[in-house]
């Protein structure tokens, strides 16, 4: 599980998916898969602001996307929060997933990692959400396009 969290995407790959997403944004109709792919790439970025954008993307897809993919959204959101060290928020997401799928070992493993890192860090979050408010609002602006019915 640590390997999955600490595996970073090639910037070129992210750029490619950003371009696809951006193209659909300009046409005013963003496909679910395009957003999902771009979101996952963002979560795998090294850059905090990109991870935060990914989190916003999956929160949005959770509310507005395919029912059967909600588990994926929760999982990726939890991975994103773990990466930016918002452990409490990460736990919230993973607990929601575990409530629906108590036996999911992928989710259980991620929960262990979060609890472990929370214990080691000694702090609760880095306040990134508060400090990075502007970035998050920016990201919400982007995903707002997605509300258009598919």
């Amino acid at each position, binding site marked *: 599980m640590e390997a*999955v969290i600490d595996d970073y995407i090639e910037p070129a790959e992210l750029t490619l*998916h950003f371009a696809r997403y951006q193209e659909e944004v300009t046409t005013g109709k963003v496909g679910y898969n395009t957003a999902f*792919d771009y979101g996952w790439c963002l979560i795998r970025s090294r850059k905090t602001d990109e991870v935060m954008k990914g989190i916003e993307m999956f929160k949005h897809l959770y509310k507005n996307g395919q029912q059967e993919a909600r588990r994926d959204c929760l999982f990726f959101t939890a991975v994103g929060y773990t990466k930016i060290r918002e452990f409490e928020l990460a736990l919230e997401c993973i607990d929601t997933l575990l409530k629906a799928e108590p036996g999911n070992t*992928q989710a259980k493993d991620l929960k262990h990692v979060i609890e472990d890192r929370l214990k080691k860090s000694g702090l609760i979050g880095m306040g990134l959400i508060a400090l990075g408010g502007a970035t998050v609002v920016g990201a919400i602006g982007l995903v707002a396009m997605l509300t258009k019915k598919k």
Partner: protein
Amino acid sequence: MAAPPAGSTNAPYNYNYIFKYIIIGDMGVGKSCLLHQFTEKKFMSDCPHTIGVEFGTRIIEVSGQKIKLQIWDTAGQERFRAVTRSYYRGAAGALMVYDITRRSTYNHLSSWLTDAKNLTNPNTVIFLIGNKADLDSQRDVTYEEAKQFADDNGLMFLETSAKTGDKVEDAFLETARRIYQLIQDGSLDLNAAESGVQHKPSHVTRPLGTGEQPEATGKSCQC
């Protein structure tokens, strides 16, 4: 002579090579169960669909060399297909799995094979696995037919059961033996970033903080 810096370690790597593997194929064919069986020797009877990717490692021995397998198990559900492709790069081995009781999973192999060929390097060892061999009464694809497909495409092939464990070790180990043979032949360039193989000379010692450190073994699959 200066004393070694505090905290330096003289422990050698407990393996000589790292091979990267990927496991691909349709959803539900048993990829995660194969990984879990290989790393934990256990079978998960109801395993939820993988979200994104899972990861497992195990150290094996081939010709007296310790090899650490780093295995990426990809999600087979269609919505993950675009991004899981980015995990193919630099794989030394690709295990391509279908379910012998579901013909559709066999029919999709050509598409998985196209991805595997396009996204890995020419020396990547592709191993075809027909899983769920324990369910012989529900068989939908004959051994002979799949063997022919494997031969036509230059793939190695075995039927396995992640449930009973039958031939699971063989599939992972034979892939490693083939990769090791390619290294010995000189057809696999260890210096190429895309080869999926890293050499870790076991007698070299490095101080902490320079390059990768030896890792604890054993952490593995989350089926």
